[in-house]
Protein backbone atom coordinates (compact mmCIF):
# COMPACT_ATOMS: atom_id res chain seq x y z
CA UNK A 1 0.00 0.00 0.00
CA UNK A 2 1.77 3.17 -1.13
CA UNK A 3 -0.15 5.52 1.22
CA UNK A 4 0.74 3.40 4.23
CA UNK A 5 4.43 3.30 3.30
CA UNK A 6 4.39 7.03 2.70
CA UNK A 7 2.96 7.62 6.14
CA UNK A 8 5.47 5.29 7.81
CA UNK A 9 8.29 6.98 5.91
CA UNK A 10 7.09 10.41 6.98
CA UNK A 11 6.89 9.36 10.62
CA UNK A 12 10.51 8.28 10.46
CA UNK A 13 11.79 11.21 8.38
CA UNK A 14 10.39 14.03 10.51
CA UNK A 15 12.36 13.22 13.67
CA UNK A 16 15.48 12.47 11.63
CA UNK A 17 15.26 15.87 9.98
CA UNK A 18 14.62 17.48 13.36
CA UNK A 19 17.66 15.73 14.83
CA UNK A 20 19.84 16.73 11.88
CA UNK A 21 18.78 20.33 12.31
CA UNK A 22 19.68 20.13 15.98
CA UNK A 23 23.08 18.69 15.16
CA UNK A 24 23.75 21.45 12.60
CA UNK A 25 22.80 24.08 15.15
CA UNK A 26 25.14 22.53 17.69
CA UNK A 27 28.01 22.54 15.19
CA UNK A 28 27.29 26.16 14.23
CA UNK A 29 27.33 27.10 17.92
CA UNK A 30 30.70 25.40 18.40
CA UNK A 31 32.13 27.18 15.33
CA UNK A 32 30.95 30.52 16.61
CA UNK A 33 32.39 29.80 20.07
CA UNK A 34 35.77 28.95 18.56
CA UNK A 35 35.69 32.15 16.48
CA UNK A 36 34.84 34.18 19.57
CA UNK A 37 37.65 32.58 21.53
CA UNK A 38 40.13 33.40 18.76
CA UNK A 39 38.88 36.97 18.69
CA UNK A 40 39.16 37.44 22.46
CA UNK A 41 42.59 35.78 22.59
CA UNK A 42 43.79 38.10 19.85
CA UNK A 43 42.49 41.26 21.44
CA UNK A 44 42.86 40.79 25.21
CA UNK A 45 46.46 41.99 25.66
CA UNK A 46 46.06 45.15 23.60
CA UNK A 47 42.73 45.84 25.29
CA UNK A 48 44.37 45.44 28.68
CA UNK A 49 47.20 47.86 27.79
CA UNK A 50 44.67 50.41 26.55
CA UNK A 51 42.58 50.01 29.70
CA UNK A 52 45.68 50.35 31.85
CA UNK A 53 46.74 53.47 29.98
CA UNK A 54 43.35 54.99 30.68
CA UNK A 55 42.91 53.77 34.27
CA UNK A 56 46.53 53.60 35.43
CA UNK A 57 45.65 50.65 37.63
CA UNK A 58 46.51 47.01 36.87
CA UNK A 59 43.62 45.35 38.74
CA UNK A 60 41.00 47.80 37.47
CA UNK A 61 42.25 47.36 33.91
CA UNK A 62 41.98 43.57 34.20
CA UNK A 63 38.46 43.85 35.63
CA UNK A 64 37.45 46.22 32.84
CA UNK A 65 38.67 43.83 30.15
CA UNK A 66 36.93 40.85 31.76
CA UNK A 67 33.66 42.78 32.07
CA UNK A 68 33.91 43.90 28.45
CA UNK A 69 34.47 40.28 27.34
CA UNK A 70 31.45 39.05 29.29
CA UNK A 71 29.21 41.84 28.03
CA UNK A 72 30.30 41.24 24.43
CA UNK A 73 29.48 37.55 24.80
CA UNK A 74 26.12 38.27 26.42
CA UNK A 75 24.93 40.89 23.97
CA UNK A 76 26.78 40.54 20.70
CA UNK A 77 28.03 36.94 20.30
CA UNK A 78 25.44 36.46 17.56
CA UNK A 79 26.65 39.46 15.54
CA UNK A 80 28.96 39.00 12.52
CA UNK A 81 32.59 38.58 13.62
CA UNK A 82 33.76 41.75 11.86
CA UNK A 83 31.56 43.82 14.20
CA UNK A 84 33.05 42.38 17.37
CA UNK A 85 36.13 44.60 17.60
CA UNK A 86 34.45 48.02 17.51
CA UNK A 87 31.63 46.73 19.73
CA UNK A 88 34.09 45.29 22.21
CA UNK A 89 35.98 48.58 22.42
CA UNK A 90 32.78 50.52 22.80
CA UNK A 91 31.85 48.35 25.79
CA UNK A 92 35.37 48.65 27.17
CA UNK A 93 35.32 52.41 26.75
CA UNK A 94 32.03 52.69 28.65
CA UNK A 95 33.44 50.50 31.39
CA UNK A 96 36.61 52.63 31.54
CA UNK A 97 34.50 55.79 31.82
CA UNK A 98 32.56 54.26 34.74
CA UNK A 99 35.80 53.32 36.49
CA UNK A 100 37.26 56.76 35.93
CA UNK A 101 34.19 58.32 37.55
CA UNK A 102 34.63 56.02 40.55
CA UNK A 103 38.34 56.87 40.69
CA UNK A 104 37.47 60.57 40.69
CA UNK A 105 35.09 60.12 43.60
CA UNK A 106 37.67 58.04 45.44
CA UNK A 107 40.33 60.69 44.89
CA UNK A 108 37.99 63.37 46.17
CA UNK A 109 37.43 61.34 49.31
CA UNK A 110 41.13 60.56 49.66
CA UNK A 111 41.97 64.25 49.32
CA UNK A 112 41.23 64.39 53.04
CA UNK A 113 44.20 62.08 53.52
CA UNK A 114 46.76 63.27 50.98
CA UNK A 115 49.48 60.77 51.92
CA UNK A 116 47.19 57.79 51.42
CA UNK A 117 45.78 59.25 48.18
CA UNK A 118 49.10 59.55 46.43
CA UNK A 119 49.13 57.43 43.26
CA UNK A 120 52.36 55.40 43.21
CA UNK A 121 52.03 54.87 39.47
CA UNK A 122 51.53 58.53 38.60
CA UNK A 123 54.19 59.80 36.20
CA UNK A 124 56.96 61.89 37.61
CA UNK A 125 56.06 65.52 36.77
CA UNK A 126 59.71 66.34 36.12
CA UNK A 127 60.01 63.39 33.74
CA UNK A 128 56.79 64.36 31.96
CA UNK A 129 57.75 68.01 31.56
CA UNK A 130 58.27 69.40 28.07
CA UNK A 131 61.87 69.36 27.00
CA UNK A 132 62.85 72.98 26.29
CA UNK A 133 65.37 71.76 23.73
CA UNK A 134 62.76 70.30 21.48
CA UNK A 135 61.23 67.25 23.17
CA UNK A 136 62.07 63.56 23.50
CA UNK A 137 65.21 62.59 21.73
CA UNK A 138 65.39 59.82 19.20
CA UNK A 139 67.11 57.49 21.66
CA UNK A 140 63.98 57.42 23.81
CA UNK A 141 62.26 54.12 23.05
CA UNK A 142 60.16 51.36 24.56
CA UNK A 143 58.83 51.64 28.09
CA UNK A 144 60.35 55.04 28.70
CA UNK A 145 58.88 56.46 25.54
CA UNK A 146 55.51 54.92 26.34
CA UNK A 147 55.62 56.42 29.83
CA UNK A 148 56.15 59.86 28.27
CA UNK A 149 53.27 59.29 25.89
CA UNK A 150 51.08 58.10 28.77
CA UNK A 151 51.84 61.29 30.64
CA UNK A 152 51.01 63.35 27.58
CA UNK A 153 47.82 61.41 26.88
CA UNK A 154 46.62 62.13 30.38
CA UNK A 155 46.53 65.82 29.57
CA UNK A 156 44.31 65.34 26.52
CA UNK A 157 40.51 65.72 26.57
CA UNK A 158 38.84 62.31 26.89
CA UNK A 159 37.53 62.09 23.32
CA UNK A 160 40.90 62.98 21.82
CA UNK A 161 42.58 60.37 23.99
CA UNK A 162 40.05 57.73 22.91
CA UNK A 163 40.54 58.60 19.24
CA UNK A 164 44.31 58.30 19.64
CA UNK A 165 44.15 55.00 21.54
CA UNK A 166 41.75 53.36 19.10
CA UNK A 167 43.16 54.75 15.86
CA UNK A 168 46.85 54.60 16.61
CA UNK A 169 47.39 51.97 19.28
CA UNK A 170 44.61 49.56 18.36
CA UNK A 171 44.93 50.31 14.64
CA UNK A 172 41.20 50.60 13.99
CA UNK A 173 40.07 52.45 10.88
CA UNK A 174 37.91 55.56 11.04
CA UNK A 175 34.61 53.64 10.65
CA UNK A 176 35.45 51.15 13.42
CA UNK A 177 36.66 53.93 15.71
CA UNK A 178 33.39 55.78 15.11
CA UNK A 179 31.44 52.72 16.30
CA UNK A 180 33.74 52.26 19.31
CA UNK A 181 33.41 55.94 20.28
CA UNK A 182 29.74 56.21 19.41
CA UNK A 183 30.20 59.26 17.17
CA UNK A 184 30.44 60.18 13.49
CA UNK A 185 33.46 59.43 11.32
CA UNK A 186 33.99 63.18 10.88
CA UNK A 187 34.26 63.59 14.65
CA UNK A 188 36.80 60.78 14.82
CA UNK A 189 38.98 62.53 12.24
CA UNK A 190 38.75 65.83 14.11
CA UNK A 191 39.49 64.29 17.53
CA UNK A 192 42.37 62.28 16.17
CA UNK A 193 43.97 65.20 14.37
CA UNK A 194 43.67 67.39 17.46
CA UNK A 195 45.12 64.62 19.63
CA UNK A 196 48.12 64.27 17.33
CA UNK A 197 48.70 67.99 17.25
CA UNK A 198 48.41 68.30 21.03
CA UNK A 199 50.76 65.36 21.61
CA UNK A 200 53.19 66.88 19.16
CA UNK A 201 53.16 70.10 21.14
CA UNK A 202 53.52 68.37 24.49
CA UNK A 203 56.18 65.91 23.45
CA UNK A 204 58.03 68.33 21.25
CA UNK A 205 59.54 67.72 17.88
CA UNK A 206 60.42 64.16 17.01
CA UNK A 207 63.94 64.03 15.82
CA UNK A 208 64.43 61.69 12.90
Amino acid at each position, binding site marked *: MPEESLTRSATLCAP*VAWERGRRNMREAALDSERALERFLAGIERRAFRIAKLALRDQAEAEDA*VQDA*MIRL*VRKYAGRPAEQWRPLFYRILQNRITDSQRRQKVRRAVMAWRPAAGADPEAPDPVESAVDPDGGPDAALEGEELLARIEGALEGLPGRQREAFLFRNFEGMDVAQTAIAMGCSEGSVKTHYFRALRALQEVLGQWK*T
Partner: protein
Amino acid sequence: MEDMNRRMRELERRSRAAFDESVGSLDAATRSRLAKARAVALAELRQRRLRWSSSWIPAGAAAAAAVVAVMLWQGERATAPGEPALAAFEDLDLVAGAEDLDMFEEDGDFYAWAADEAAGDVG
Protein backbone atom coordinates in the same frame (compact mmCIF):
# COMPACT_ATOMS: atom_id res chain seq x y z
CA MET B 1 52.75 71.89 6.43
CA GLU B 2 54.61 68.97 4.91
CA ASP B 3 57.06 69.05 7.77
CA MET B 4 54.20 68.94 10.28
CA ASN B 5 52.67 65.93 8.52
CA ARG B 6 56.01 64.17 8.53
CA ARG B 7 56.44 64.80 12.26
CA MET B 8 52.93 63.58 12.95
CA ARG B 9 53.54 60.40 10.99
CA GLU B 10 56.72 59.90 12.95
CA LEU B 11 54.83 60.43 16.21
CA GLU B 12 52.26 57.84 15.12
CA ARG B 13 54.88 55.35 14.08
CA ARG B 14 57.06 55.58 17.17
CA SER B 15 54.23 55.68 19.67
CA ARG B 16 52.60 52.64 18.04
CA ALA B 17 55.90 50.77 18.09
CA ALA B 18 56.31 51.58 21.79
CA PHE B 19 52.77 50.40 22.48
CA ASP B 20 53.25 47.16 20.53
CA GLU B 21 56.45 46.51 22.44
CA SER B 22 54.65 46.98 25.76
CA VAL B 23 51.91 44.56 24.65
CA GLY B 24 54.52 42.00 23.63
CA SER B 25 56.33 42.23 26.95
CA LEU B 26 53.32 41.72 29.22
CA ASP B 27 54.28 39.59 32.22
CA ALA B 28 53.18 35.97 32.51
CA ALA B 29 50.91 36.59 35.50
CA THR B 30 48.91 39.24 33.61
CA ARG B 31 48.68 37.05 30.52
CA SER B 32 47.41 34.20 32.66
CA ARG B 33 44.77 36.38 34.33
CA LEU B 34 43.60 37.61 30.93
CA ALA B 35 43.34 34.03 29.67
CA LYS B 36 41.27 33.21 32.76
CA ALA B 37 39.01 36.19 32.07
CA ARG B 38 38.48 34.91 28.55
CA ALA B 39 37.62 31.45 29.88
CA VAL B 40 35.03 33.00 32.22
CA ALA B 41 33.44 34.88 29.31
CA LEU B 42 33.30 31.76 27.15
CA ALA B 43 31.83 29.71 30.00
CA GLU B 44 29.10 32.34 30.19
CA LEU B 45 28.45 31.83 26.47
CA ARG B 46 28.16 28.05 26.91
CA GLN B 47 25.82 28.46 29.86
CA ARG B 48 23.58 30.82 27.90
CA ARG B 49 23.41 28.39 24.98
CA LEU B 50 22.58 25.53 27.32
CA ARG B 51 19.76 27.55 28.90
CA TRP B 52 18.51 28.54 25.46
CA SER B 53 18.52 25.01 24.06
CA SER B 54 17.00 23.45 27.18
CA SER B 55 14.13 25.91 26.92
CA TRP B 56 13.56 25.16 23.22
CA ILE B 57 14.11 21.40 23.03
CA PRO B 58 10.78 20.47 24.70
CA ALA B 59 8.99 22.93 22.43
CA GLY B 60 10.79 21.48 19.39
CA ALA B 61 9.95 17.94 20.45
CA ALA B 62 6.30 18.88 20.93
CA ALA B 63 6.21 20.54 17.50
CA ALA B 64 7.81 17.49 15.86
CA ALA B 65 5.32 15.19 17.60
CA ALA B 66 2.47 17.40 16.40
CA VAL B 67 3.75 17.24 12.81
CA VAL B 68 4.03 13.46 13.01
CA ALA B 69 0.54 13.19 14.51
CA VAL B 70 -0.94 15.28 11.68
CA MET B 71 0.84 13.14 9.09
CA LEU B 72 -0.41 9.96 10.68
CA TRP B 73 -3.90 11.33 10.84
CA GLN B 74 -3.73 12.24 7.15
CA GLY B 75 -2.35 8.75 6.41
CA GLU B 76 -5.15 7.12 8.35
CA ARG B 77 -7.73 9.08 6.38
CA ALA B 78 -6.13 7.92 3.12
CA THR B 79 -6.09 4.20 4.05
CA ALA B 80 -8.78 1.77 5.08
CA PRO B 81 -9.44 1.62 8.82
CA GLY B 82 -7.81 -1.24 10.69
CA GLU B 83 -4.36 -2.68 11.09
CA PRO B 84 -2.21 -0.28 8.97
CA ALA B 85 -3.45 2.73 10.92
CA LEU B 86 -2.73 0.94 14.19
CA ALA B 87 0.79 0.18 13.00
CA ALA B 88 1.26 3.83 12.17
CA PHE B 89 0.19 4.78 15.69
CA GLU B 90 2.76 2.36 17.05
CA ASP B 91 5.36 4.39 15.10
CA LEU B 92 4.05 7.55 16.65
CA ASP B 93 4.47 6.05 20.06
CA LEU B 94 8.07 5.20 19.17
CA VAL B 95 9.14 8.57 17.89
CA ALA B 96 7.16 11.00 20.03
CA GLY B 97 8.62 10.13 23.44
CA ALA B 98 11.49 12.32 24.65
CA GLU B 99 13.70 9.28 25.38
CA ASP B 100 13.19 8.04 21.85
CA LEU B 101 14.25 11.37 20.41
CA ASP B 102 17.47 11.08 22.37
CA MET B 103 18.19 7.79 20.54
CA PHE B 104 18.56 9.70 17.30
CA GLU B 105 21.58 11.44 18.70
CA GLU B 106 23.33 8.09 19.08
CA ASP B 107 22.12 6.36 15.95
CA GLY B 108 20.90 8.98 13.47
CA ASP B 109 22.44 7.19 10.52
CA PHE B 110 20.38 4.07 11.21
CA TYR B 111 17.15 6.06 11.15
CA ALA B 112 18.23 7.91 8.01
CA TRP B 113 18.81 4.51 6.43
CA ALA B 114 15.45 3.23 7.67
CA ALA B 115 13.75 6.28 6.19
CA ASP B 116 15.48 5.71 2.84
CA GLU B 117 14.41 2.07 2.94
CA ALA B 118 10.81 3.02 3.59
CA ALA B 119 10.97 5.57 0.76
CA GLY B 120 12.33 2.76 -1.46
CA ASP B 121 9.22 0.70 -0.66
CA VAL B 122 7.03 3.46 -2.02
CA GLY B 123 8.95 3.71 -5.32
